[in-house]
């Protein structure tokens, strides 16, 4: 009980709790599209591409969150453009962009003098180090992303179901594809500080995959995925404080535990 009280006493824990709730709702909401469209490799590529953005920001002396978002968005749109214009498979295009971004990031990092702890925050994340400004940015992006996805849920789902049919029905498939790629890129990069580059894709995919095990409709899919995201985030955060473990990995392990539970429920129900 004392430990729970601490969450309502210490500002850094309050911010961490708020961040885990917001990201717990946002990431799986977007993650449903990642799972349904089989874009896990794309998400991974974007999170690693943000690495190049961080390196650029560090060298140019600009806010690392802004530079990582900017580069991730450019890479995401580049992948969308290249997939459309060439006959190459998504995997190939993503692999090319991914490798280029990582290599560029490493090259640029090599130009930096001394040890930069702030850069490594992005690698592994640190939800306990979230500032008030970070929280405001997460809140703003969360509201914007969810509002756009909810308003345009129909065309996004139409395209996810079958893009040819969507095109015939008058949907501007290209516009919505680019918009979805952009949203995924922004959501991934703003979540980096919380969960880190290495694990951020898990926050998108695992709660969404858990929800997919149990959902009997799209409405339930979106509700369940965000519910699992929030439960993972809050439980993982509390557990990490109590057990004195790293928050990001603890959150991911909790969400994986929930995934296996849903698989068990699904099997039992079948």
């Amino acid at each position, binding site marked *: 009980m004392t430990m729970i009280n601490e969450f309502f006493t210490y500002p850094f824990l309050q911010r961490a709790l708020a961040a885990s709730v917001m990201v717990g709702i946002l990431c799986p909401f977007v993650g449903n599209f990642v799972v349904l469209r089989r874009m896990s490799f794309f998400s991974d590529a974007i999170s690693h591409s943000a690495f190049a953005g961080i390196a650029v920001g560090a060298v140019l002396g600009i806010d690392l969150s802004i530079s990582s978002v900017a580069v991730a968005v450019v890479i995401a749109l580049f992948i969308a453009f290249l997939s459309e214009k060439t006959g190459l498979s998504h995997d190939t295009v993503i692999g090319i962009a991914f490798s280029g971004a990582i290599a560029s990031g490493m090259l640029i990092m090599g130009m930096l003098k001394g040890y930069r702890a702030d850069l490594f925050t992005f690698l592994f994340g640190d939800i306990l180090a979230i500032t008030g400004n970070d929280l405001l940015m997460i809140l703003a992006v969360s509201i914007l992303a969810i509002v756009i996805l909810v*308003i345009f*849920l129909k065309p996004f789902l139409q395209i996810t*179901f*079958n893009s*040819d*049919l969507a*095109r015939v029905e008058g949907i501007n498939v290209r516009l919505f594809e680019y918009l979805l790629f952009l949203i995924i890129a922004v959501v991934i990069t703003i979540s980096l500080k919380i969960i880190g580059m290495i694990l951020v894709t898990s926050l998108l995919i695992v709660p969404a995959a858990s929800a*997919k095990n149990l959902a009997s409709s*799209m409405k339930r899919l979106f509700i369940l995925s965000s519910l699992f995201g929030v439960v993972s985030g809050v439980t993982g955060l509390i557990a990490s404080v109590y057990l004195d473990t790293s928050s990001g990995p603890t959150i991911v392990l909790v969400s994986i535990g929930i995934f296996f539970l849903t698989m068990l429920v699904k099997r039992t129900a079948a």
Partner: protein
Amino acid sequence: MEALRVENLCVKVNGRHLLENISFSVEEGRIVAILGPNGAGKTTLIKAILGLTYYETGSVSLFGRLFKHNNSQTRVGYVPQKLEFDRTFPLTVSELLSFTIPPFYTIPLPATHQNKPDIGSLLEVVGARDLMNRRIGSLSGGELQRVMMAKAIVNDPRILFLDEPASGVDIEGQERFHDLVKRLNRERGLTVILISHDLNIVYRFADDVLCLNRRLVCTGKPEETLTDDVIKSVYGEMMGAYIHSCHDHD
């Protein structure tokens, strides 16, 4: 009125012609079957008409207007041959149909869209009302086909494109489906462009036939057009038409 006019349509991929100089027109309210062997370009033709495949030269007009989807005033319905989708997609039939109904944004608006089609009644038309809350991944071939038909007509299209809609469905299902198409054609004046391999279906349901083998081989009424020679020129020398005249059997 002309529902569809195609002029000098050419589709080329890697230097090879998939379709060469295709020109034809379809009158409103007709059921037209497109016939041809595998690789003849039937699906390519429909996809080119619908703007899903790039065409080198030519033009497509629907109801007198050049057709470009996304800004077209003409409502078009389409049932593809092989629907590729993730069977684990937790999407119900009613959700699938509701997503097809404009507007394509979701903001609560004051009573301006009360003319939205009723999904239950729509499914009743295609004989699939009982499938309303079923997941689309759990549907059989015939059930999915009826649902896709409902999706194709949800926005009251003027013209319908059906790409081998009865493939993978049993004979009874095929009969039911083609009867449905005929009924929609009769009741709504819907123009139908249908790809079929089945000459029996073509004779029984189509008003006109187009024979295709990368080029247009023939057009006209099935009973006048589908002679033995025409079948041979479309499908090859090994094929032919045996026309059985209907008479009582002892």
